[in-house]
């Protein structure tokens, strides 16, 4: 708007930023929900070894398999076993383990993979993307063409082949997802840096005598990193979705592994007799992923200078 009021001191600064964030939060309270979900899931992941014995997932108790004894809810379908003894709030799985405990153990595993993938992708993206954009020429062309190759094929296909060939372990799983993820970040950082490096202050720094490395890593990259971080927040959810989809189709290190996708996979065979087995792990994935997506979406609005007026 040309008609915007004059911008002066009180309109900006850190205090105004916070004020602005709160204002947007008022317009869009869903962001708060995302924030809370993300924080709770991270806290849950951190304290999960305290809540549940971390090695309890090896223990099978086939007497207690597939039973439901939570009096708060009745599934209304035949063939549901009742368990005796202690209460399992979300029932038990086919190995007789408490589903709720397994889910508590699963959250840190999924979050850790997601963080590893996203952070590595950001690092790779910043490194190659900024160099491609700033140096340009042949190096830019080369990096672009390599990303082209990876963007031309559905990532999940590449991941499946990698996991089958390289062995089913959490490391390979992480690597396989990362392989399909990094090109987006290279592209994103590249386009951000391309836009940023055309800004007049870069020209001013060059005129001042600042070297390329200094301009790129002290000024340009920090100024273009916010959209990348927003994307990283959004992608935590998407990575969890991809990882759990891979384990869901059986590409898991061990059938016993408490990983949300794997738990759901164990549950799908009993979809009509023990629906909770697929319902709750999937719901957890949905909630965590939604939380990070809402958070990222909100942060994007806050950081978007065009929305300010």
């Amino acid at each position, binding site marked *: 708007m040309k*008609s915007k*009021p004059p911008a002066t001191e009180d309109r900006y600064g850190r205090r105004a930023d916070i004020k602005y964030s709160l204002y*947007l939060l008022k317009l869009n309270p869903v962001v708060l929900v995302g924030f809370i979900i993300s924080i709770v899931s991270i806290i849950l992941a951190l304290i999960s070894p305290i809540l549940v014995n971390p090695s309890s997932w090896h223990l099978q108790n086939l007497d207690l398999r597939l039973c439901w004894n939570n009096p708060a809810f009745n599934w209304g379908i035949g063939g549901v076993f009742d368990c005796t003894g202690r209460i399992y709030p979300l029932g038990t799985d086919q190995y007789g383990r408490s589903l709720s405990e397994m889910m508590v153990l699963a959250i840190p595993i999924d979050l850790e993979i997601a963080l590893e993938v996203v952070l590595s992708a950001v690092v790779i993206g910043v490194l190659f993307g900024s160099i491609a954009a700033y140096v340009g020429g042949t190096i830019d062309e080369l990096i672009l063409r390599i990303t082209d190759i990876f963007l031309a094929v559905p990532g999940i296909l590449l991941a499946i082949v990698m996991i089958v060939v390289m062995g089913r372990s959490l490391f390979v799983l992480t690597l396989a997802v990362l392989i399909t993820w990094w090109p987006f970040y290279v592209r994103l950082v590249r386009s951000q840096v391309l836009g940023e490096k055309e800004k007049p202050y870069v020209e001013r720094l060059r005129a001042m005598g600042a070297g390329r490395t200094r301009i790129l890593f002290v000024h340009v990259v920090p100024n273009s990193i916010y959209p990348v971080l927003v994307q990283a927040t959004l992608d935590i959810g998407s990575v969890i979705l991809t990882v759990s989809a891979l384990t869901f189709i059986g590409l898991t290190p061990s059938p016993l592994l408490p990983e949300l996708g794997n738990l759901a996979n164990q549950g799908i065979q009993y979809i009509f007799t023990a629906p909770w087995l697929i319902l709750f792990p999937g719901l957890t994935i949905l909630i965590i992923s939604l939380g990070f997506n809402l958070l990222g979406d909100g942060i994007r609005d806050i950081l978007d200078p065009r929305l300010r*007026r």
Partner: protein
Amino acid sequence: MRKVGSEGETILAVNDLKVIFHTYAGDVKALDGVELFVRKGEVLGLVGESGCGKSVTALAIVGLLPPNAEIVSGKAVLDGTDLLGMGEEKLRLTRLKDVAIVFQDPMTYLNPVLTIGLQITEIVASQPDLFIPELIKNRLDEISTIEKAKGELVPKLQVEREKLRAKSQTNRLGNEELTRLTRLYATSILKSVRLPEPEKVFKMYPFELSGGMRQRAMIAMALIRRPKLLLADEITTALDVTVQAQALQLLQQLKEVIDTSVLLITHDLAVVAEVCDRVAVMYAGNVVEVADVKELFRNPMHPYTQGLLASVPRVDLVAEQKSIQGSVPDLMFPPSGCRFHPRCPRVFEKCPVAKPTLIEVSPGHLVSCFLFGG
């Protein structure tokens, strides 16, 4: 004291216009009781520095303020009807026919993916019945021009003329006929804003035109409506001097042709001196001084006007420019009383306490300052 805007030949009178922008950080009191009027057939210059509210005034008049703006009070009376109290649909028709606005930057204001021709003809297409008499008249004029050039009557054109005359009785046109006449009309308008090869420009996209040509295209969009009032919002700011001269000249000539009044919004006092009949000076959401252009430059009364005039560099002579101390206030926290008082060299006790009103000091010269009564 004479009431502002009480002149008989007034086309637009704005009274006590107050606008607030609600922002996350607080309310910006952008307009603080703007008073101005435009006489029929004159060019009124509305001048002030960035952020003084001159564009907001224009947008408020045509009802195009952004959603976070609120018109707190005021009237904008165009030819007897208050625009601010109008319903959305009536206001749309007013924008369509009576008040046209031309904006600053011809690149960003033209839709990049639509042809110039479409962006002009869609105006007619949106309410054809309002334009049919002009479309027919334009074609009839064209026919007689052609015949005059040939020196004889052309039978084919004669037939067309009869048909058109018949149609002008009913004020109805078929779709095909409407499209054809609209196209001819638009082309003739493009020609009248002196765009070379109007038929070609008709089919071009904005990015294919130069800055000056785009500005002409935008003026054509205003012109095709033959508005009673033309709001020209910084129309020369983005242009080079030679192109600016062309645009100003064009504006003056067209004003005569279509017999309209112009509210010329600008920050450039030189432009004001060149083309305006009267001037209104704005500062921080208020009109602080209104006068005939010669009177204002000869005898500026308000300290702000004096400061502004003293700071303008001139191309015809070398002189030390004086600047106004301080900077434009943040209108979220406007100064009390007279909004200029923190920067005013002649401030006294009354200024921070009360707000001066615009009063007529000498015939046609209005000032809002306690030095002159207020």
